[in-house]
């Protein structure tokens, strides 16, 4: 057993190795929440297979007082292994001076034993069997026993864990009691058999005062509720399904009419993603706020109708929780690889507005804003989340809402508007000079305002036309409208401004966690680069200025072909030699170490 050296306070990476489908996710999540309640920033990452039960799965908890919640890499300080199948490999991934907790029914191979880590065999199965009666209880409580042991290892106050359990199983006293028992079993056994706590200790702080523990998928669903969506049409696909589930849950909570018990929303689980986007477009066309949530393969199916929405100028909101591609790819791994297919979805000259949230708080905000943006610009808007942000619970800023906020419905002519105006609507005419025309909802006025919506070429009155002049007026205005959109989408954030080196870093989305940490690592070595976080397409003019200002610009992203770099070159007419890439695309979330090492190589 390694002798404890100096303590590492609130700075530990814990990894659980479980068999998927065993109830471990719930138990592991309890621990994450307990650390949050201890007032220390914490983030979890679920690394799971595309499978229902029986295969290896891992869950990481990163505790970091400094707020570094990104993936740290291969090695974990504490590994709790409940899966004999992955055990040999898991042992190799404990960092030097770390701890390996495992079920003592497994006999370790002496040849593979390391002398630079501490082994903590624990009687998880034995205790579960002797202390609990039903097979179900034994399986589930085994997980809570190891949580108790872990609490002893890192000196986490059991009362905090108990409060989490009490909230989780509110109203089910027998379950609470059972969980408490298991917790104490693990804690007491570990404490009485091993010199604990270890050097990895969790000390209470007060750093989470205005924070919450939330996932991107739940946050975007909440954003859809707050943003006024009344229609969700969707098809199940990993990893976006939990977002649809969350919307259903919030709708049940917030959107039931008090008097009648009827629903102020409609959720359609349709037959495929083409039907999803079709229903979204139809509902949006007819004046309701509608959205769908999907992943890469779904986007591919939606491209034809996305082009129709672009050309016919109909709002559409899509949440894309990106996963490993291409094709069926890696349904349970993360990437940022749908940028090109989303930005330019569809044949012909098309462009879609993209939003890039970096954490659940931004998922909430941008998910709600997407409807205002889509209706204002009369264009599809795609929220580009990914698996890393979507499925993982992380410490993030609490949700806020301005109660004075009114929905921005865009240029919609009312019956009164039509009554008062001379003549009738010219659906696709640029009246105000901002390239955004006026529309009407069906059934607005008895004799005015009706027009034909079509995916075919049309003139400014929405009449079918094959004439070159008519066609060009429309598509050229769409190009101008793209520039107008710059003013309505989230601005980039200059996250680091040092003006000391001639190097600038561009990044977006879920890379933020790792980038923040990597930049701090570089600054600790007196390497100061500027960093701008892109939050939307079309690009704000500040992005172009940033690129022009630096001699070298490095674009960090999680795909093989440098898709953001491609978009920057294409949209801003940048010389390709100006933009360099740091690319991580194996399916695991990018780590600070990877960015740090590649930056050092480049600089």
């Amino acid at each position: 057993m390694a002798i404890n050296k100096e303590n590492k306070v609130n700075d530990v990476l814990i990894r659980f190795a479980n068999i998927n489908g065993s109830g471990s996710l719930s138990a592991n999540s309890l621990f994450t929440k307990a650390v949050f309640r201890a007032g220390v920033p914490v983030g979890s990452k679920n690394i799971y297979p595309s499978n229902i039960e029986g295969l290896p799965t891992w869950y990481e908890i990163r505790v970091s007082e400094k707020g570094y919640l990104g993936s740290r890499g291969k090695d974990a300080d504490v590994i709790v292994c409940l899966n004999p199948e992955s055990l040999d490999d898991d042992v190799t991934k404990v960092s030097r001076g770390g701890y390996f907790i495992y079920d003592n029914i497994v006999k370790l191979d002496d040849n593979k034993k390391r002398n630079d880590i501490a082994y903590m065999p624990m009687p998880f199965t034995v205790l579960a069997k002797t202390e609990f009666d039903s097979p179900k209880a034994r399986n589930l409580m085994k997980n809570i026993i190891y949580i108790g042991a872990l609490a002893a290892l890192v000196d986490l106050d059991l009362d905090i864990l108990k409060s989490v359990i009490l909230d989780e199983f509110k109203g089910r006293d027998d379950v609470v009691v059972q969980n408490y028992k298991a917790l104490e079993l693990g804690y007491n056994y570990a404490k009485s058999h091993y010199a604990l706590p270890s050097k990895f200790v969790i000390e209470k702080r007060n750093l989470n005062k205005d924070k919450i523990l939330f996932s991107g998928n739940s946050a975007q669903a909440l954003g859809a509720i707050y943003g006024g969506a009344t229609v969700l049409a969707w098809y199940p696909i990993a990893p976006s399904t939990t977002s649809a589930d969350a919307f259903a849950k919030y709708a049940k909570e917030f959107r039931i009419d008090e008097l009648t018990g009827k629903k102020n929303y409609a959720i359609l689980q349709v037959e495929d993603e083409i039907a999803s986007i079709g229903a979204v477009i139809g509902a949006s066309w007819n004046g309701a706020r509608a959205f769908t949530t999907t992943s890469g393969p779904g986007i591919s199916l939606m491209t034809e109708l996305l082009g129709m929405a672009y050309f016919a100028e109909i709002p559409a909101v899509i949440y894309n929780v990106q996963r490993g591609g291409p094709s069926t790819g890696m349904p349970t791994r993360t990437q940022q690889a749908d940028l090109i297919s989303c930005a330019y979805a569809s044949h012909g000259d098309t462009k879609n507005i993209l939003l890039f949230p970096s954490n659940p708080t931004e998922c909430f905000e941008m998910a709600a804003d997407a409807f205002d943006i889509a209706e204002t610009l009369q264009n599809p808007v795609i929220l580009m989340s990914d698996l890393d942000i979507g499925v993982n619970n992380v410490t993030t800023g609490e949700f806020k809402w301005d109660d004075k906020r009114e929905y921005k419905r865009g240029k919609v002519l009312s019956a009164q508007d039509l009554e008062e105006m001379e003549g009738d609507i010219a659906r696709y005419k640029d009246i105000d000079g901002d390239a955004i025309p006026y529309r009407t909802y069906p059934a607005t006025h008895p004799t005015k305002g009706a027009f034909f919506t079509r995916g075919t070429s049309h003139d400014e009155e929405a009449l079918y036309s094959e004439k070159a002049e008519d066609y060009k007026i429309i598509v050229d205005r769409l190009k101008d409208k793209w520039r107008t959109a710059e003013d309505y989408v989230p601005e980039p954030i200059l996250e680091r401004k040092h003006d000391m080196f001639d190097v600038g870093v561009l990044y977006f989305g879920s890379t933020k966690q790792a980038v923040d940490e990597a930049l701090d690592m570089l600054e600790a070595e007196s390497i100061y680069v500027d960093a701008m976080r892109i939050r939307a397409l079309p690009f704000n003019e500040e992005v172009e200025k940033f690129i022009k200002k630096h001699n070298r610009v490095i674009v960090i992203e999680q795909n093989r072909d440098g898709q953001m770099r491609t978009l920057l070159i294409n949209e801003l007419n940048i010389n390709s030699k100006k933009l360099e890439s740091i690319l991580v695309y194996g399916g695991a979330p990018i780590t600070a170490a990877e960015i740090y090492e590649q930056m050092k190589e480049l600089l």
Partner: protein
Amino acid sequence: MTDEKYSLADYQGAASTLCKACGHDAISASIINACYEMQIEPHKIVKVSGIGCSSKTPTYFLGKSHGFNAAHGRMPSIITGANMAHKDLTYIGVSGDGDTASIGIGQFMHTMRLNLNMTYFVFNNGCYGLTKGQVSATADKERGTRKYPASHMEEIDLVRLAIISGATFVARGYAGNKKQLVEIIKRAINHKGFAFIDVVSPCVRFNNDKSSTKSYPYMKSHLGEYGGESIITQEEALAALQKIKDDNKVPTGVFYENNLVLDAHDMLQTTSTPLRELNEDKLCPRSSALVGVNNKAR
């Protein structure tokens, strides 16, 4: 007649650009007449179509209504979304046999299962007119069109399919029998649920040879009609259909009419106010609710 609020002109659209004697023009005229006789407020009708000769027709009727010429085979999902946004308008979907029986077969099936309150037309001529004469999935198995050979594949009978797939009103009309068609349309529009009307609509350019069961000459000598009581079970509907087929006639009429099935909005329990008319007060839980959400996440 003079007490009417709306005249026939209020239901007309632009001039047709279809071939002379195309069956589709007779259907357009029938839709105009039916809506006129029912005195539906013209602007409260929503017309959506797919792509094809059939799907061009919404321009030729109901000029005061908003129209949506969507994508090939995708009219059902568009009209579903539109219906979700406002359940109290009259929804007319126009499609063809290519649009519905091939690329659109999936959306057709699932919209019937939803029992969406709409009237769904297939202008059925057994061929792809707009792309110049290919055989469609409803074409006779062993007969080609003027331009293309027979498919030798099982033909899809959309009426049979609709009866067993969740449609709650199923009928077939014929462009050459406007009187019957107008009555069918009126019943269909009045029906609360998915009303399907398959209309034999000869394509004079590509599929009007007397050997084709979708031609004027064939229909003239083989027109069959079900004129009996309203049928409310699927089995009886199929039997009535088959009986006429056994007589070597093309079955037309209303074959199935079931008013006991909840339509989509009833099933979804949506509120009585059309969803698009709900505002922030009904839709946004505001900051007070966020207190609870945030607290549960701590």
